[in-house]
Structures are given as structure tokens and as C-alpha cells.
């Protein structure tokens, strides 16, 4: 019996992505950001999430995609991996699907220019939809944070 996954689906451009629901704390509308100087460009700043200061990264910029202006659909997906809590800016988030873990195929070499290491795989939902599963560990990679720290030195 394959592992059942509940996945939050969000959009970046025309692509649909998924993160496992247990990594997701909450989904918020866009809120005022405070810029943090001398951090990588994809770190958009910090927000006040009900009294807790949470850093926010722009997934588009993280993946090297063309930036876009926030719209009414823009959402912040607050994810937690280990002891790291981060908000991800996505174009929209409006679906939850159930997946069999074994339906996730290995990531193709290049998906929309995103490095394969950020991706856990691709899942097919129904006939048409392709869902790109994120590898959150890599997206919030320690090494990348170390690089990030190196920038400041």
C-alpha cells in the first residue's frame, strides 16, 4: 500500500507545484514586508505573522524565474522544515489534492528552468494535470543559507 500524501497545490506562472500539507503551517494573503538589507535578492524581507517574525522568500526569484508583481491572487505559503519557518510567495494557491507517493516520477532534467535538485518529482493528476512536487529541504537548503551568510561577510 503506497503512502497517501495530501498536497497543497500552488501556481508559479502556468506551472502547478505541490508541497506536502504537513510542511504547511498556514496560507496567508500578501502582507506588508520589511526588507532585510544585505540578504540575497530572493529574500523579500520579513513579515509579522501574528507576533512572530517570519522571513519571506520569493519562489520565482529563488528558482530564477521572471519576477512578477503581486496580484490579488498572490499568497504566502508559510512552510516549516525542521526548525526553519519561511513564507513562500506564490502566484496563487487554491487546491488540495490526494496523491499516492509512488505516483511521483523522478524529476526531469529541466523543468521550466528550475534546477532539478529543488524538485522531488512530478506527479500526474487525472489525464491533463502535471504537479511538480517541491523538495522543501533543498529549497530551504542549509548550504544556501551558508552562502547567504557568506554574502554578508
Amino acid at each position, binding site marked *: 500500500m503506497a503512502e497517501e500524501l495530501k498536497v497543497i497545490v500552488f501556481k508559479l506562472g502556468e506551472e502547478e507545484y505541490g508541497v506536502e500539507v504537513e510542511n504547511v503551517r498556514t496560507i496567508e494573503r500578501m502582507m506588508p514586508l520589511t526588507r532585510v*538589507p544585505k540578504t540575497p535578492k530572493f529574500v523579500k524581507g520579513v513579515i*509579522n505573522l501574528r507576533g512572530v517574525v517570519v522571513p519571506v522568500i520569493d519562489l520565482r526569484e529563488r528558482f530564477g524565474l521572471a519576477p512578477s508583481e503581486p496580484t490579488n491572487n498572490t499568497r504566502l505559503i508559510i512552510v516549516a522544515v525542521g526548525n526553519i519557518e519561511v513564507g513562500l510567495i506564490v502566484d496563487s494557491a487554491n487546491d488540495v489534492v490526494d496523491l499516492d507517493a509512488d505516483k511521483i516520477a523522478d524529476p526531469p532534467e529541466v523543468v521550466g528552468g528550475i534546477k532539478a535538485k529543488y524538485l522531488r518529482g512530478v506527479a500526474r493528476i487525472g489525464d491533463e494535470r502535471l504537479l511538480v512536487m517541491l523538495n522543501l529541504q533543498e529549497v530551504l537548503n542549509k548550504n544556501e543559507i551558508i552562502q547567504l551568510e557568506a554574502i554578508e561577510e
Partner: protein
Amino acid sequence: MGQDQYLSMFIDEAKDHLQALNENMLELEKRPDDLDIVQGIFRSAHTLKGMSATMGFEDLASLTHEMENVLDQVRNQKCKMNGFIFDTLFKSLDALEAMVQDIVAGGTGKADVQEIVSSLQAIFRGDTPVSAAEPGKEANSDMSLDQYQYSVLQQSLDTGHKVFFIRVAVRDDCVLKAARAYMVFNVLETNGEIVKSFPTVEDIEQEKFEKIFSVYYISKLSEEALQRMIMHISEIESCEVASLDHEKLKQLASVKAEQAAGQSASGNDGHRGVADSHPNQARQNVHVNRTIRVDIERLDTLMNLFSELLIDRVRMESLAAEIRRNDLTETVEHMARISTDLQNIVLKLRMVPVDTVFNRFPRMIRDLAKSLDKKVELVITGADTELDRTVIDEIGDPLVHLLRNALDHGIEAPADRMKAGKPETGTIYLRAFHSGNHVFIEIEEDGRGINRDKVLKTALKKGIVTQEDAKKMSDDDVYQLLFASGFSTAEKISDISGRGVGLDVVKNKITSLGGSVTVESQAGKGTKFSVQLPLTLSIISAMLVKAGAETFAIPLTSIVETNIVQTEQIKIVQGRRMVDFRDSIIPLVQLAELFECPGAANEEKSEWEAIVIRKGEKYVTLLVDTLVGQQEIVLKTLGNYLKKVFAVSGATILGDGRVALIIDPNAIIK
């Protein structure tokens, strides 16, 4: 309410009582004849006994019971306090503390306290080393009865039985004392009833008595018959049988007045009078804080919820301004006032008096002074000064170290003090007080002072300073050497110091709490260590400034002054901008430029708002666009993802709900 909740209540109260016991014992040591203090100690022990028994901690209960027996004799003036009794009682307190600690850690509070119990029982019998010389002479005075036993004996008299006090001594050369005692008990039990024996039957069975044991006994036989029967047993040296009537029984049995509250307390009216004459004083001695314990995390949650409320408040205020209805505006204003008050209370919830740390010091100093053979008085002032809980938790160890240091290295041995023309007893002052946004804790003693030359010599030997530097160093510089790592001036390694843990550890700890420590010393007069601590780690006073459209907070502690810098005052030295400040030229940094703030005012401005910040002796002028004002801010971290950000030590949430970054001036000054 479940057992767990009772347990935490028990633990809190037990700790309070132990603290009261410790304090009172120390007090009593100074004034051993003050029966009021004994009363206070007795009461604490008694309450503790009752509590422990109720909670099922038998070992705790029985140890306190033995203490109570001894204390009872003391307060009824049947026994005088002496060094041995003090030591034993202190040992008992330590054992009790260990048991309570065990319970806190989830244990059962069981401990092997047989040795202490034996000592207590020996005292109870009058076998203390001081009075042990003549154990037999004190006759019947060391035997007390509790209320129950007393009434049993009285009733026996009323029903025509005879009550005896029998004291039996076995011969010195007796081989099996317990066996002889058993035979005596056997004889007695077949002819009557033993109400109480000293020591207890169990102890007698285990041969835990010297040579004498005694019993309260009810029988129909005559004195002579009893005596004959007992003397008939071999290896019995002597046997005194005293017949008791009501009057004698009253004299003998010191009924515990407190237990018999409401009942006739005849027989020790005199002592009651003493106790009642200073009831308030006694009550103060067993002062118990009325507090509840709250998980810090819950307080944090409360604080976070509060931040949200503040955001809503700002929103409501702007809505009310739009809607312009008088009653709405009034309500919102009222809400604003209340929430401000509430915020203050929430912040204060984290504040704890330093007393929670200080209260263990008197005992520590006493024990330490004893082991070092020094005489010292510890004077504590300002124990009600409040500090943030997180600081309190951390500050204990450094203070212990400084106090030990003061006693071990500072205070001289009594003989040396006399030679130096000082009183034999040294004094250590432990002071805590508020000053501005800081709490100061001072440890000052009137000891020998720091030997500047010796410190320098050690530092030179260890290569901490060079010969040239040494010549130029001021006294303060020299004293700061004490905090260098690996530095110790102790010539011989004692129990207390010289274990490789030096003042450097103390300094690191204090610095990590955002505080600092300084030393003042005068040779032959004494030394003062002064520890400066922030009031709290989570709330700081800060100056809010704007650079471009962004708001930043600068901790007030690193701000020297704010002023205005005219553009023409700015000088260029080797390509860097500098400015005059108090007769020296210091670097100038434009905050908006440093942080690349969008929308910052350009450099065409003719004058700038400026803040002079410092790190030690180094200064920097920081140009900002606007000074918003001073504010208390709640410190928040940026989270684990952004662990180290250049020149940012954290963030805070402003009244409008937005996040402002807190500038770390130390990073700007290089």
C-alpha cells in the same frame, strides 16, 4: 484538580518552607537564645511534616518529625542550641532539599537519612557531644510526649492505673544490649503497656542507643515490684522507676501548644506567652510568596497575541476616525488605554525579584566560611529588585562565583584581619538596585584588595600582556586582566577556586546576557565587583529612526548622543567621511547608504539628524533621515532561516503591526 497539581503546589510550598527554615536557622545561629526564631523554625518544620505526610512522602515526613522533636526541646528550653545541633539541623535541611529536588525530578523523594536521623535522635536523648559526658544526669527532662500519648497517660491515671517513667541503664560491659533491652521490654509488656520509649523500639532493636533507654509505662504493679523484675535481668546496671501523678505528668510532657490549638494548653503557658509576644515577627520569618508558576512559553504566546491586538487597535482607531461617531471614538480610546495598561502588565509578568537567586547565598557563605575558617557577614540589600526571568535563570552561577571569589581571595583569615587593624569578621555586601534601564548587582568586601603587582606579574608570566604594555596600564586595565581567560592569582588550589574555572567564564556569561562587569579595588581596603545587567532580554529601550521609508530601531544602550551634523562639517580623511566629536575625529556612516534603503534623501541635504553610537571606546556617527523617538520594543529573532544578517540583531513589531529591524551597532563599528 489532579494529583499533579497538588504535587506542584507541594513542591512550591516545600521550597518556600525550606527557604524559610534555612533563613531562620542562619538567623538563629546569630542569636541562639531567641526562642521566637525557634518557634518559627518549628512551625515551618511542622507544616512541612504535615504536607509531606499528606502527599505520601514518608521519608520527608519522618525526617522532619525528628527535627521537630529536637526543635521542640529547644523551644521548651530543655536543650540549648550548640554547634553540633546546628550542623545536624543544617544537614537535615540539605537532606530535605535533596529529597524535594528528587521529587521535582519525578522521583519518590526517598533517601537514606539514617545517619542524620540517628544524630537527631542522639540530640533528642541529650547525647550531643557537648552534653554527652553526663548522659544520665539530665534525668527525665529530655523526654517529651505528643498530645495523643499525653492524653493516653492521663486517661490511664483517671481510670486508676499507675503511670511510670522508667529509666534503665545496661552495664558498660554488656555484650548484647539489644537483647537485654528486649528482655526488659518483654517483662514490661507482660505486666502492662509501654506508651512510648526513647529511643524508639526499632532503634533499640538495632542497638542504636548508648546504654540508657527509658519508657512511659502503664501498669497496675507497684514501683518496687517493677524495679525488682527489671533488675532481675542480668547485665542491667540500674533501673529507676518513678511513679507519675497528673501534676508530674504535666510537667514532664511538653505538649505541643500549636498542635493543641484550642485545647487546654496548660503546662506551658510561659512559653506560649513568649511566642505570642511577637507574633508578627514570627509570621514575617515564614513569609510565603503568594505566586503561581507559569510556563514562559505561555507568556510568550500571551505577548504575541497582544501584538495582534495592538494591530487591531491601530486599525480600529483609524476606522473610528473615519466613521466619526462620538461613542465609537470614546470606546476605542478607552480600549487603547486599557490595552496599554495590559501590555505593561504582560511585560511585567516576566519580572522576578532577584531574591529568588539571592536567597541561597547566606547558606552558601556560611558553609564556605566554615570550611575556610574565616569569619564573615553577608549583608544583602535590594533583594526585591526585579529582573527578567531569563536573566535571573542565568545570573546565579556568575554570582556564586563572584561571591566565592570574594570570600576565598578577598576576605582575610581572622588573624590577618586583626593584624591589619580590621574587625575579625569580614563583611560582604551584596547589593542589587535599578538604575535607568539597568539592574546593578554589586559584590563588595572589606578584604585585602587586589594586589596590582601580583596580577601584573602573573599576566606577564602567562604572556597575557607584554612588558611595555604593563608599564602603561592603569589600575582599571590591570583589574580587567583578571577576566582574561586562563588567569588565576590563587597561589594554592583550594576547594573553592583554582579549579580552572575563572572569572573569564563569569565575564562571558554576563556579556552574553548583554551586561558588563567592572572591578574597583583598593589595596588593604577591599574590592568591589559591579555587574550591570539589562532589565530584560526581551524588552529594550530603543531609538526609532527612519532611513528612506524604512524604520529601524537602535538600542539605547549603545547610543551616546543624538545631534545634528551640517554637511560642511563632514571631512574626508583618506577617502572616508569623518566628523568631529568631542575633540576627536570619528567615522561617519550614512544608514540609508549602508542598508541601501530605497527612497533615501540624497546627499544634497545641508544638515542631517545624527546618532553617535559606541562600542567600547570606539565611536561612529550614524546619519539618518529622521529621528522618530524613543520607545520600548519587544525583541524578536529573525528566525532560523536568517540567522546572521549583517548589522541586524533582530526585529521588533511596531504599533502599526509592521516589522522594524533592530540595528546591531557593534557590527557597524569595526
